């Protein structure tokens, strides 16, 4: 076998696979016009989930706009601080997530006409001494990262603590980790209704206007949306949608509650997993996590072996100089940057304008990342094998690749199996950042439940227990494999 040949085949396979995926998606688009909307669905009544579906004022308004103009609507859930970037990079057509118009945002995206006037309000704990905005100086203030609340507090009061969503801000106030939170007024009202521990100051901190963010190049969309918005406002439809969701969100808050630890636990369990089939977020998330991890492990091993063999061959034979240089560059870049950054770069920059299944993107990102660590582990395994093994193989007339594959690698693999197993366990846990690209993996599943139930403890514990179980299972499997391989000696 020839190393260059393997490398070449791998590249071609990769190209054809990804080429086909993106082609398939494009064909679908050509048949029905789709409007791709992004939002962070933890912001009731503007966007939230019910029975797994993303609903709310923004989805309803945009769906109506899409319907009236002959588009099918696709909604994606991603962290608020990524949605503007998603529109800017062309990953999405429109961001509708209770976005306030600001000068900075205007520089990178176009805004539709405002469709709602809103503001930021201050949330505090029930027994807080804070009476007005003037008391906020020097306090621990929580905001949702990237929101206008964040910007306002940072500029006018002091550095805030930034959370992924408003639900987390409220949870942190309830548990005493924050003195106050600055959150959009409408969702703030909802959070206050749902929790006995927090209240809202009557005076809003700011007043501002919500609008949709649209890619700078899509002036056609901008015009279409503005025209339809005027129609809908004239018909009184927007007011109607707002009223409907404000009512919807409040309806199930009054419940008779038992008390006592066990009853509380049963109640929490029911709310977090059984109601609205919320366990499905964990189940589907778990499947995604396993898909991503398994795919990344396979890709990581392939890349790792290839890179390790090229590096070792270059060291031992003095050939493959250019391939070795490329490998070194790859190792330096991957090991020198955080995996979150790599994931975001691959999603937003490398595949920015290509429509590929996000699981595939995650597999590529985590596989590329893991490959670097696998490569160094396997290379250390190769170096741990006595030089005499290579010489014995070569002296018997075996070629370098054959000696590598039949003699060196099996021994190296056995030596580094514990380290490799460890790397895969790390990889499994690292996939928990997939939520950054709006993938609903296990961790994100827990986040979604928390966003709906305002309970931080139960979903987090459930997520932790699931990861732990998988890791324990994997460790056992590895021990068995090691024992099997050791039996030979």
């Amino acid at each position: 076998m020839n190393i260059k040949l393997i490398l070449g085949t791998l590249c071609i396979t990769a190209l054809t696979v990804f080429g086909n995926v993106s082609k398939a998606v494009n064909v679908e688009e050509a048949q029905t016009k789709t409007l791709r909307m992004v939002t962070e669905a933890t912001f009731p009544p503007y966007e939230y989930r019910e029975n797994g579906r993303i609903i709310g004022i923004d989805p309803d308004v945009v769906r109506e706009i899409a319907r009236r103009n002959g588009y099918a609507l696709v909604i994606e859930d991603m962290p608020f601080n990524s949605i503007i970037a998603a529109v800017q990079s062309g990953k999405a057509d429109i961001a509708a997530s209770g976005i306030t118009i600001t000068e900075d945002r205007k520089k990178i995206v176009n805004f539709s006409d405002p469709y709602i006037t809103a503001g930021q309000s201050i949330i505090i704990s029930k027994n807080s001494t804070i009476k007005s905005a003037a008391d906020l100086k020097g306090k621990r203030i929580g905001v949702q990262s990237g929101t206008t609340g964040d910007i306002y507090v940072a500029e006018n009061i002091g550095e805030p603590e930034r959370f992924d969503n408003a639900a987390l801000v409220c949870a942190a106030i309830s548990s005493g980790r924050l003195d106050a939170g600055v959150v959009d007024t409408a969702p703030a009202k909802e959070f206050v209704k749902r929790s006995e521990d927090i209240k809202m100051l009557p005076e809003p901190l700011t007043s501002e206007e919500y609008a949709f963010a649209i890619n700078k190049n899509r002036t056609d969309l901008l015009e279409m949306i503005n025209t339809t918005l005027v129609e809908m406002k004239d018909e009184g439809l927007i007011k109607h949608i707002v009223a409907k969701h404000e009512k919807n969100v409040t309806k199930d808050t009054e419940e008779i509650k038992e008390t006592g630890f066990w009853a509380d636990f049963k109640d929490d369990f029911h709310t977090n997993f059984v109601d609205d089939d919320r366990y499905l977020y964990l189940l589907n998330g778990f499947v995604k996590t396993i898909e991503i991890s398994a795919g990344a492990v396979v890709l990581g091993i392939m890349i790792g072996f290839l890179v390790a063999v090229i590096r070792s061959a270059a060291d031992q034979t003095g050939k493959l100089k250019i391939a070795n240089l490329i490998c070194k560059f790859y190792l330096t870049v991957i090991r020198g940057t955080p995996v979150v950054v790599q994931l975001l770069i691959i999603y937003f920059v490398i595949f920015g304008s290509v429509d590929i299944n996000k699981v595939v993107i995650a597999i590529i990102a985590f596989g590329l990342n893991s490959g670097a660590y696998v490569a160094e582990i396997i290379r250390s395994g190769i170096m741990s094998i006595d030089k005499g093994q290579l010489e014995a193989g070569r002296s018997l007339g075996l070629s370098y690749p054959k000696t590598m594959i039949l003699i060196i690698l099996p021994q190296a693999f056995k030596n580094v199996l514990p380290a490799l197993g460890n790397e895969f366990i790390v990889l499994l846990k690292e996939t928990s950042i997939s939520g950054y690209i709006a993938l609903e993996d296990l961790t994100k599943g827990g986040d979604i439940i928390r966003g709906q139930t305002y309970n931080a403890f139960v979903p987090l514990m459930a997520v932790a227990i699931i990861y732990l179980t998988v890791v324990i299972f994997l460790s056992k499997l590895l021990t068995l494999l090691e024992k099997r391989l050791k039996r030979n000696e």
Partner: protein
Amino acid sequence: MENNPVIFEVKNLVKKYAKVHAVNGASAAIKKGEAVFIVGPSGSGKSTFLRCLNKLEHPTSGEILFHGKKVSDNPRAENHFRENVGMVFQHFNLFPHLTIKENITLAPIQTKRLTKAEASAVADELLARIGLADKADAYPLQLSGGQKQRVAIIRALAMKPEVILFDEPTSALDPEMVGEVLSLMNDLAKEGMTMIVVTHEIGFACEVADRIIFMDNGKIIEEGSPVDVTKNSQNPRVRDFFQKILNV
């Protein structure tokens, strides 16, 4: 023997590492069926000389002819050439993840020198010959040093090479195991196998060698029959060396 064809012809071989000239202008010819022993002080370049012969090391200058022809540096030609030149190492270098039988059959099968069935038959025959038939399915770790080295020798033999290079085959063995390895080598020499042996076993060399080559400082400074080299050399370095060894 006199009229046998020359297998290896070495002309003015030089192998230089970063700082040292390991071999510094050595010339020799090895004929078919000869048992040539290379002796000399430690660090004199014996191993390097041997490893250049099967191209595990590439000479800095000089020429090595195999059957009168230079072996091309093309990897495929080198691999094919090595099939004909067996090597036995000081530390055996058996493959620990393979059984004894797999150790023996791996190379003949992979290089297509033998079919699977042929290789298996050859392995069985060779194992029976050294009395280790019952170890066919054992792993190297379960063998004693002497057994390992004898397996390493028949592993080289299974390729049916024209010549076998030995680099201090008994130096890593406990004294009580040296005998079994030397006796197998003696048998091979009697059968007419061409052998080039680096060793410190001077007694054995005198008994078996057709010719002894003495190396010092990367150069061949004496060459001839065992008696001529060990007893009658005019070279003081050589005389000194054997005097010290034989007086111990």
